């Protein structure tokens, strides 16, 4: 495997790992909404296990992000020929494109958490609003980038 292929693989699999962890986190927070909405805590208390899983997922996504960044930096420092790949215009545009769906998802989540209360007066307060939004933001950003960047390896 050439250095360039290794470089691209580290970048891609790092992002896939972050996407996977943030999707699981988002799913867990969605589950928390349904859980509190249906008053399930009266029958099945979540306990410590839920917090441990959430923390493991959060720290593994942070670890993956930092590890990916450091690995790419180190590889680029060792091989100066890889530096233009880091500053590739196509990749930058793909990152910029990925911000658009992420922004709209974030906005939709905010409005969806408030408008039912405002219009229909649902007794529904979203638990863990900020973690839910942040996990959705990371999921949408990495997912959209992976989608837009899917053809670049072949190029």
């Amino acid at each position, binding site marked *: 495997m050439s250095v360039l292929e290794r470089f691209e693989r580290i970048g891609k699999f790092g992002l896939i790992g972050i996407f996977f962890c943030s999707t699981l986190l988002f799913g867990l927070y969605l589950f928390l909404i349904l859980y509190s909405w249906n008053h399930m805590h009266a029958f099945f208390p979540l306990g410590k296990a839920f917090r441990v899983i959430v923390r493991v997922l959060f720290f593994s996504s942070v670890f993956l992000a930092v590890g990916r960044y450091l690995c790419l930096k180190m590889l680029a420092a060792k091989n100066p020929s890889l530096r233009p790949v880091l500053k590739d215009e196509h990749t930058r*545009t793909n990152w*910029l494109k990925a911000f*658009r769906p992420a922004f709209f998802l*974030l906005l939709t989540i*905010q409005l969806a958490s408030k408008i039912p209360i405002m219009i229909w007066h649902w007794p529904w307060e979203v638990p863990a609003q900020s973690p839910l939004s942040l996990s959705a*933001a990371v999921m949408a950003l990495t997912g959209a980038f992976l989608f837009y960047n899917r053809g670049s390896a072949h190029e």
Partner: protein
Amino acid sequence: MNKIEKIYRMRRSVLICAFVCSFFLFGVFCFFVPFWSLLSGRHPLDHPANFLVTIFLIAGVLTVLLLLILMTRYFLFCASTLKDPDLRRAVDDERIRMNWLRAYRAAFLTMAGIHLIYLFSESFIYDLGLPHAAWFSSSAGLLTFFGAAIFYTREAKNERA
């Protein structure tokens, strides 16, 4: 003034009006809701007789109406003039698309930053006690989006000049 210039001008006025609208929204959720609740112990929108809040809300509604009028005018003009593909390409080129994408980036980072501040303050420092994280972050995101779009459009206008 040619058609392209006119479209740019109309787009800019729509953006400025949308920015003012989001400023009113942000003002309600950033200023009135937390501070009024803190002072009176009640929700500010429960006080329709209050002079300042009423003026603020009326101004906000008027700006929304103005925005609707400007947007209708803009889209009608675009629908009538942009049938020519060359004109369409001139108005919607790659640089303008990049400016929109940059504006999305700024808005996304603002919203994510606000939620990060909320998360850290609730987890480690002090619960801010602001119950409107969703409204606050979405209005700040919209404000940043329109502000960034105006800023980058201005940059493109300077480059054209």
